[in-house]
C-alpha cells in the first residue's frame, strides 16, 4: 500500500496548493526511559557483528545523540540444534566489549567473532544497574545469485545505470533484507551507512526464481555493494515494522510501533545470512 499512500500524499499536496503550516508549541509529558538494543550478527563480514545499547530520549529533549549505554556485559552464544531442542553451551559463549568506549560509547564488538550459517544464537546482556536483556536468532543459509546484469539507458550511457539480479527462492518461507551501498570498500561499518534498504518476503513469489531490479538508477561507473541477507521471520517482522515506523508521517499515518524480538528492551537481535556481490556499473 506504500506506493498508493505515496501517490495519495502527492496528490494531496498537488490538489491543495493552498495548505499551510505553522510552528506550534506542544507540551508532552516526560516519558519513561527504556533500553534499546540493536544486535547484528552474520557469517561473512566482521564489521557487521555488533551490539548497540542505547536509551530512549524524551521526544522534545534537544539531544540528537545516540544516548549510549556503557558498561554492560554482553555475551553471544552459538547454539546447537538436536532434534527439536536447541542447546547453548557456555563454552561457545563470546563476550562483546565496549572497545572504543571513549570514541563510540554503547557499541559492543568482538573482532574474533564470526557467525555460521544455519546456527542459532543467544544474546545475553546484563546492564550495570542489574537489568537483563536477552534474545535469540539464527543465521539462515544465504542465497546464491543465479544471474546479475547491468544496463544503461539508451544514448544516456554517462548518466543512468541499472542492475538486475536473480536468485532461487526456496519452497520454505523466506524473508529478505537487502542493503545497497555505493562505495569502493566492501566493509560496511554498520548497516546504517548503507544507502538503500529493502525488506521483503516471498509472499508473492515463492519457490521460483526471484528477480530484483533497481528502480532508482545509479551512475555509470559507480561501484555498488549488494548485501542480500536471508533473515528469520520474527526478525523480518521487526525490520518491516521498523521500515514502517521510519517512513511514518503525513496526515493519515497512525502511530507505528516496532515489534521487538528481544526480551527486556526495544529492538532486535538479527542473524543475517549474507550473499554479497560487488558490481562496477560499466
Amino acid at each position, binding site marked *: 500500500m506504500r506506493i498508493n499512500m505515496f501517490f495519495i500524499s502527492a*496528490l494531496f499536496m498537488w490538489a491543495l496548493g493552498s495548505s499551510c503550516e505553522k510552528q506550534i508549541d506542544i507540551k508532552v509529558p516526560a516519558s519513561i526511559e527504556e533500553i534499546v538494543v*540493536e544486535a547484528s550478527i552474520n557469517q561473512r563480514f566482521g564489521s557487521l557483528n555488533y551490539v548497540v545499547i542505547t536509551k530512549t530520549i524524551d521526544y522534545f529533549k534537544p539531544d540528537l*545523540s545516540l544516548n549510549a549505554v556503557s558498561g554492560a556485559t554482553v555475551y553471544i552464544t552459538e547454539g546447537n540444534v538436536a532434534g527439536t531442542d536447541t542447546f547453548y553451551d557456555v563454552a561457545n559463549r563470546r563476550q562483546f566489549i565496549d572497545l572504543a568506549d571513549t570514541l563510540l560509547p554503547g557499541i559492543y564488538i568482538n573482532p574474533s567473532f564470526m557467525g555460521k550459517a544455519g546456527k542459532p544464537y543467544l544474546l545475553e546482556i546484563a546492564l550495570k544497574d542489574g537489568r537483563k536483556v536477552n534474545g535469540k536468532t539464527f543465521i539462515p543459509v544465504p542465497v546464491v545469485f543465479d544471474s546479475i546484469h547491468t544496463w544503461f539507458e539508451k544514448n544516456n550511457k554517462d548518466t543512468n545505470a541499472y542492475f538486475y539480479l536473480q536468485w532461487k527462492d526456496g519452497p520454505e518461507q523466506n524473508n529478505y533484507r537487502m542493503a545497497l551501498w555505493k562505495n569502493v570498500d566492501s566493509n*560496511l*561499518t554498520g*548497516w546504517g551507512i*548503507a544507502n538503500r534498504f529493502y525488506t521483503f518476503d516471498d509472499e*508473492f513469489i515463492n519457490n521460483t526464481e526471484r*528477480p530484483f531490479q533497481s528502480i532508482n538508477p545509479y551512475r555509470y561507473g559507480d561501484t555498488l555493494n549488494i548485501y542480500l541477507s536471508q533473515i528469520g521471520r520474527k526478525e523480518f517482522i521487526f525490520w518491516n515494522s521498523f521500515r514502517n515506523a521510519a517512513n511514518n508521517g503525513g496526515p493519515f499515518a497512525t502511530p*507505528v510501533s516496532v515489534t521487538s524480538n528481544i526480551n527486556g528492551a526495544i529492538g532486535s537481535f538479527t542473524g543475517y545470512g549474507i550473499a554479497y556481490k560487488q558490481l562496477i556499473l560499466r
Partner: protein
Amino acid sequence: MVKFPEVNISHFLLRNFLLILLLGFIFASNAMAQTRFTISGYVKDSANGETLTGAVVLVKEGKGGAATNAYGFYSLTLAEGSYQLIYSYIGFQTKLVQLNLYKNTTLNLALAGEGIKVKEVVITAEREDKNVRSTEMGRIEISGEKIKSLPVIFGEPDVLKAITLLPGIKSGGEASTGFYVRGGGPDQNLILMDEAVVYNPSHLFGFLSVFNSDAVKNVDIIKGGMPANYGGRLSSILHVNMREGNNQNFNYSGGIGLISSRLTAEGPIQKGKSSFLISGRRTYIDILAKPFLPDRIKGNSYYFYDLNLKANFILSDKDRLFISAYFGRDIFDYQSVLNSKVKFNFGWGNSTATLRWNHVFNSKLFCNTSVIFNRYDLYNDATFGSGGISVRSSLQDWNMKSDFSWFANDNHLVKFGLNYTFHTFQPGILSGTIGSINLDETINKQYAHEFAVYLMDEWKISHRWSVNYGVRAVAFNLVGPYQQEVYDNDTKLPTGQHTRFKSGESIAFYPRLEPRFSANYLLNSSSSVKASYTQTYQFLHLATTSGAQFPIDLWVPSSRLIKPQLAYQYALGYFRNFKQNRYETSAEIYYKPMYNQIEFKPGAQLFFNQNLEHEMVFGNGLSYGMELFIRKKTGRLTGWIGYTWSRSTRQFDALNNGEPYYYRYDRTHDMSLLLSYTINKKWSANFVFVYGTGNATTLPDSRYAYRFGYDAKENQPKFTFIDKYSKVNSFRLPAYHRADISVTYIRKKTDKWESSWNFSIYNIYNRANPYFIYFNPDLVNKTVNAYMVYLFPIVPSIMWNFKF
C-alpha cells in the same frame, strides 16, 4: 474511564416485546369494529409532480392525522362523516379539502410552492408539530434545496458536510466526508442512495461527497431510536433520496463553480404520468491547474464525475415504478516527467442501480419492493521500466427487499418486511510482470448472505401515550467456496495448512435478534418526553488504519474470527415547541455501549494480505452524551443551533495496555449554528459557525536511535530516529472552529428562466484549524519542532446557477 462488560439484555427485552407485540395486534384488529373508511393517496408538488415525503394531512375537526411516507403515500382511517382535511408541507401552501366520507376514497393531491400564486382557498392550519407528537427520536430530514443554500468551500454544496451541522453528528475534519454519529465510527453509518448502499461516499479523498446536490430531493438521517425497518449498521442510517424528475415540463438546470460544473435535464416522458432525470457533474481542477503546475508534477491529473439517472412511471393509481442509477468515478493519472515508461493510473467509484415498485394493495396496505445492485470498485495500474502491475478490488451486492405498511386503523401503523442481500467481496487481484517474472496473485473472494425480517407497530395508545415497538431478526452467513489459512493457536502464525469450504458451505453463521422500542408521552400540546431503546448488529466492517476514509480501505465480512459488531443505545429526550411550533427545541441524552469493535494492530500489513483478520484486534466502545437543539423553521430568519456534550472511548486488550482510551473523534463540546435570512425577493444570506473540541491524537513521547552505522570518513555515527508512542489518543489537537457566510442573489426568476449567483466566504476569520501535526528535528539548532498543517485559510468562492 471504566471498563465495561458485555451485557445481554436482549433476552429479557425480547420476551416483553413479543408480549407487547401480541397485545398491540389484538387492539389493532379489535378497533376495526365501527363503520370506518379510509382516505389514501399520494401528495405531490404541483410544479413538477415529485412526491412529497413527510407532508401532513390533518383532520380539521381534530380527529387525527397522518403523514406521507418516503414514497409520498398516506392513509387515514375515519368514521363515516363530513370532514375538512388540511394538507400541509413546509415551504408549500396549505390546502383545505372538504370531504364527505361514506366509502374508501383515493385522494391524490398536489401542493403548490409558496412562491407560486394559486386561486384555491388557502387557510392557515396548525403548523407541523411532528417533532413533539411522533415517537421518533434523533431523526432529521433536510431538503436538497436547504443543502444547496448553505455556505460551502469552493461553492460546492455537499450533503455530507451539511448533516455534520446537526447535533450528535460530527465531521471528521475538512478533508473528510466521513461522519461520526454519537461516538460511532464512519463505517457504522449506512449510507443509502435511493436504497442502494454506497460503500464509499466520498470523492477527492473525502473533500466532497458523491451526492450531486442537483439530483438530491432530500436527506433523512436517523442517529438513534432506529425503528425496526432499518438495520445493518450500528450508529446511523443516512438515506439520500434522489429527485424523480419533473413530470409536467422539461427543465434544464445547472451550475458553474470554481472546481466543478453540474448539468441536469428533466422532464415528462408522458406528461403527468412518467418522468426522467439525468444529472451530471465533473470537476475540472485538472484542466484549470495544468498551466500553473511546476514541470515535475505536470504529468499528474485528477478529476471525478458523477452521473445520476432516474425514471419514474405512474402505471396506475395503484402502481408506480422507479428506476434509478448512479455511476461515479475518481480518476488519478500520473506520468513521470523523467521517465516516459513510468505511469500510474488509479481510479475508483461506486455504481448503483435500483428498481422500485410501489404497489397499493388497498387503501390500507402499501408495499414497496426493490431490487438493488451496488458495486464499489477500485483499479490501480502501474507501469515502470521493465514491467507493470495491476491491482483490482471490489465489493458488490445484490439486494432484494419488500416493505409493507399496513395502516390498520387510526391508532396502529404496522410495518413489516424482508430484506436479502448477497455480498461478494473481492479484496484484491494482483497481476503483472516484473522483469521476466509473471505475477498472478488473487486474494480469495468471499461470499455472504445477509437476511433480515422485521415487524413493527406504531401504536397510539391514548391521547398522551404512543409507542413504536418492533423486532428485527437478522442473519449473516459467510459461505464458501473459500480457502482459509489455519493459524497456530500458540504462536498465532500461519501453519501453512488450509481449510477448504465448498461452494455454499457455511463458514460462519450469525443469527441475531434486534428488539427496538420507543415511546412518547405527550405532556401537553407542545411538549413531550420520549425514550428509546435500540439494539443493532453490524456484519460488515471497514478495514482502515488511517483517520480518513480512503478508496483503498476494504470492507470485510464477519467471519469465524471477526464477530458481528453490536451496539445498544438508550436515549431519553424532552421535546418542546414554542410559538405555534415556529420554534422546535429538544434535549436528548444517550448512552451507547458497543462491542466487537475492530482496530488493526500497530504496523499491520494490509496490502494483499490473505489473512487480514489476523492483523486485527478486537475490543469495546462506549459513548454517551447530551444534545441540545433549537430550530426555527419558518419566517424570514430560519436556522438552528445545536450543542453536544459527549464522551466516546474504546477499550482493547491489545492496545494501550488494555486501558480505555479516548476515541479519535471524542469531542467534549461540539456546537453548530446555522442562520438563513431572506432579505428580500432577490437577496438571501446564510451564516454558519461551528466549534468542536480538538480530536484526540497519539503523539510520540520519546524517540530512540536505531540502524547504527559508523561513517569512517567523518568519524561520526549514523542512525535513524524512531518515534516511540505510549498512551493512545492522550493528546488533544487545538479546537476546531470556523465561520462561513454566503449570499445568494437571484438575478432573474420567471417561469421560463431562473438564474442566481452564490457568493460564499469560507472561514471568514481565517482560523488555522489543525489538519495534522508533524515534528521535525532541527539538526543545526539541535531541537525538535512541532508544526501544525492546516488546509483552508479564508476561501472566497462564487457559483452561478441556472434553470430554464
